[in-house]
């Protein structure tokens, strides 16, 4: 039996705590995403920071993707027999050829799924 199940079973009003947790998480979603839109008055940011922040979105995306592409169990992959590598190469190749995101996903998955499910890479 899973831990959360025990947690649920052991407590009569067991739905209360996860509900509080979830409502708090929703509040965090709103506050973090609206954070600098909350105050009415302008918050002065230094000019260099404003220029530098234009690199933040691409850095955030890279930081989310890079470990998903290049790491297994918290370590850099050390084999070439990993379905992700050829899939990423094909997907990136398609992107630079045609510049379409849908095609990039399809091209990558067409390489990834057979290698991953079929050969277990």
């Amino acid at each position: 039996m899973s831990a959360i199940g025990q947690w649920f079973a052991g407590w009569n009003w067991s739905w209360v705590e996860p509900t509080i947790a979830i409502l708090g998480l929703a509040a965090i979603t709103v506050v973090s995403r609206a954070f600098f839109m909350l105050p009415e008055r302008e918050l002065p940011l230094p000019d260099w920071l404003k220029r530098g922040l234009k690199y933040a979105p691409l850095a955030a995306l890279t930081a989310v993707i890079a470990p998903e592409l290049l790491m297994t169990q918290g370590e850099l992959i050390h084999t070439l027999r990993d379905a992700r590598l050829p899939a990423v190469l094909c997907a990136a190749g398609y992107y630079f050829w045609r510049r379409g995101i849908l095609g990039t996903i399809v091209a990558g998955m067409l390489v990834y799924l057979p290698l991953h499910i079929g050969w277990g890479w």
Partner: protein
Amino acid sequence: MSRLQALRATVRDPAFRTGVTDMMATCVGIAAWGLVTGVAMVKTGMSAPMAIFMSLVVYAGSAQLAVLPLMAVGAPLWVVWLTAMCVNLRFVIFSSMWRSYFQPLPRRHRLALGYFSGDVIFVAFMKRFPRPEPQPEQVPYFWGAATINWFSWQVPAIAGILLANAVPLSWGLGFAGVLALMGVLLSMLFDRATWLATLVAATAAIAAFALPLKLNILVAIAAAVTAGLLIEAADHHLRRKPKVLLVPADEPLPPADRRQVQDGDVPLREERHP
């Protein structure tokens, strides 16, 4: 104008449809990711109704995935919330850029915009409206993008929750979400500075992966911002000189520009606007 009429006007606006079509391609990846997140929620032991409630209310894929294992072992609430805050820190940075577009709107509307914004909407919006100033078509554009993003996340997520035992996680369908984000990322790389900033961010994110609370994302952002600013500064000093320096009349020149003009490299043209 009643609220219903305002809503109808937003949906009928041509910019609403532009927002929808701009998001269309990435939505396939978002949907795959939503499905996998839904399955993962049930697989960690959460009951289906609670998982649906969580998906509909929290609406934050990466934060949900990060806190699921913590909730499963009954971690204290503050640990769960602190983790979610850290995973969401990148949105705090994005919100400083949303501000320059949406600040004139009432605060309640700004909160709603914040709640429904995500990574991909942010990128699409910034590409469509590079100049950080309010324009009337931005709000319908945002809601168009946000609407399709919401549906393409929530419908597969709930399907994944209900069909958790029929969708094996071992297939790796979530990889489609990674590929979608990769496509979005590639579309943002257009010069040396952006490519180098991305390489730095990737290296930093992997090197700092062992940090708790997904703080490696923040390390990567800091490293990439620093790298980007350094490259810009190097470009500015070494090679790139503007053909003509256009300045507002009667304004003091920044020191770097003044030096270029004094050296006689760059002609100066003053403009006086009425």
